[in-house]
């Protein structure tokens, strides 16, 4: 809606050097360390990485949803020409909804158990447009129809516990979309769902995206999903972007050892069998570094299987352009590893 009025080249969201620091009993935790990316209209950016890599925190920080008493957020995050990180709390409240909608991971906990579906949808609609309850209710029913809930009129009066997980997630998506946001943030939106429902939800988001030109940030650790929906991929590790580029560049020619590790831990059904058996999956040994105690050099150094460069341990590798990439998007990776982009 709003996105179409913008020039096509203008990104919906431009994040520049986003840093989040959390105060913890064990000292300051550097959860996000200088993250920069853009999301264009109609574009899907997948943010991948394992648990604790700072994916969720980085998007919660965008909408000011981190508790202010523990989180310090710096950098710039410009949504449709306005910096989310410096705007007043009143303005931010106006932006939440029409500017950016958010879908949370677990549909079992992201709906209020004591309110009917309709009330929760109408709440989001009426928070931003001065419409009567009847109009809002009709729009709510339309939204439920749009996300594929059967019999939307009746579903409005149902309570969350009466719906299945997939149905609830559709409701959550309907709420996030209720103000036609320019940006949709899906934080592990399909992780808690089974694969068939997951596929339906992904279809749904893609269809809505095509209809409304919404920019999407899709946070996941499922590379299968990434290959299916993303235009570009951003691989996060230790609160940093370690590799980004188009989905083809990153998934076909991973340059960072961590990205390779992630891809290696996926079963490849096209791969020929070895002695009639599926070859063992590789794993990335060890755990991500605690954000209170990040390594001085490359964040991945302690777990890196190919570390050889003397700079690995002491110096932070910059995000270097590897190739101009397809579709005008550079393929970049932050590694001292010189072994080339191809396996």
């Amino acid at each position, binding site marked *: 809606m709003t996105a179409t009025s913008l020039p096509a080249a203008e990104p919906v969201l431009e994040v520049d050097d986003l840093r989040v620091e959390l105060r913890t009993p064990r000292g300051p935790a550097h959860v996000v360390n200088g993250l920069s990316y853009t999301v264009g209209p109609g574009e899907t950016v997948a943010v991948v990485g394992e648990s604790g890599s700072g994916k969720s925190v980085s998007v*919660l920080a965008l909408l000011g949803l981190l508790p202010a008493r523990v989180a310090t957020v710096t950098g710039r995050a410009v949504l449709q020409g306005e910096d989310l990180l410096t705007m007043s709390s009143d303005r931010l409240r106006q932006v939440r909804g029409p500017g950016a909608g958010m879908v949370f991971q677990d549909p079992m906990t992201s709906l209020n158990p004591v309110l009917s579906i309709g009330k929760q949808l109408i709440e989001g609609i009426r928070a931003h447009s001065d419409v009567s309850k009847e109009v809002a209710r009709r729009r709510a029913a339309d939204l439920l129809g749009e996300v594929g809930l059967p019999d939307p009129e009746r579903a409005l009066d*149902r309570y969350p516990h009466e719906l299945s997980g997939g*149905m609830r997630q559709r409701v959550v998506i309907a709420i996030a979309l209720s103000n036609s946001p320019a940006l949709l943030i899906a934080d592990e939106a399909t992780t808690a769902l089974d694969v068939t429902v997951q596929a339906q939800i992904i279809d749904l988001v893609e269809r809505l995206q095509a209809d409304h030109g919404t920019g999407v940030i899709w946070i996941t650790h499922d590379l299968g999903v990434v290959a299916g929906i993303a235009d570009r991929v951003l691989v996060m590790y230790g609160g940093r972007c370690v590799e980004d580029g188009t989905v083809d560049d990153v998934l076909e020619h991973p340059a960072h050892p961590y990205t390779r590790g992630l891809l290696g831990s996926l079963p490849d059904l096209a791969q020929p069998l070895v002695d009639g058996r599926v070859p063992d999956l590789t794993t990335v040994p060890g755990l991500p570094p605690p954000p209170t105690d990040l390594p001085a050099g490359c964040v991945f150094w302690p777990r890196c299987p190919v570390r050889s460069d003397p700079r690995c341990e002491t110096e932070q590798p910059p995000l270097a352009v590897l190739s101009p990439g397809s579709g005008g998007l550079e393929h970049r990776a932050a590694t001292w590893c010189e072994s080339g982009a191809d396996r």
Partner: protein
Amino acid sequence: MTAVPTPGGTPAAPTPGSPIVTRPVRPRWRETLGLLARDPTAAIAAVVLLAIIVVAIFDTAFASQGPNEQDIANRLQSPSWSHPFGTDDLGRDILARVILGASVSLKVGFLSVGLALVVGTLVGLLAGFYGRWVDDVLMRIMDMLFAFPAVLLAIAILAIRGPGTSNTVIAIAVVYVPIFARVTRASVLGVREEVYVRASRSVGASDLRLLTRHVLPNAAPPIIVQTSISLAFAVLAEAALSFLGLGTQPPNPSWGLMLAEGNEFINRAWWLAFFPGIAIVVTVLCFNLLGDGLRDVLDPRQRTLMAGGGR
């Protein structure tokens, strides 16, 4: 659970192949009442309380003689047909006075707990939701109130403001505000972190909306239980204060005051103190039993257990 059509709602027209479970849309409070009715102790307590409340409301209709009507010729009569609870030292009908005492006790109980509920819940809600300095300031004030023994605090307030029914209400309310504040705050602290609160914030809901629509309703169960239990203690506190001569003033009847008056004659006329005493015991017991029942019903884990394994 039987799959009957929605009572009073839209006619149930199950769409073929609809994955939505066809379960009757039952408001939560109806479900709560249904579960409460299955707990015989709580159900009986609720019925007895309801009876006491009805009697207290229509007080004069149940008494043959005015509560302050004196009949010196018939003083200290033991229970009989004309005076089922006997008469006191001034020939007043004890039954009439117990009934009027019920309306005084319940009025003081409901008003004081209502006042404490409103103020305490508001304090706890703000302290729990906003945290930081709001929490510190509000809860330290509550801690100061908590530091006094309850009855001592009430006596002190009545000593300052003078005895009387309305001051008794204020005194008991002040004693219960910190209890409601603590219960509410603890409950809010848990609810505040729920994803749906964050989700609602993410579509632009205001703080007021978050508090009234999302936080308070989900934090309510322990507050409801606390209300029922506090009512028991408020009735008891009113009796205690009146017994000490600080609450309801003679000649108006109050259970505590009647106990004090009957005290002198306990060897000769046991009914003077016995019937108001029984009234206090029954009322307090019923509020407590109802509170226990509500606690069981409103605890979500127990709730599923009971709803699932129901006969």
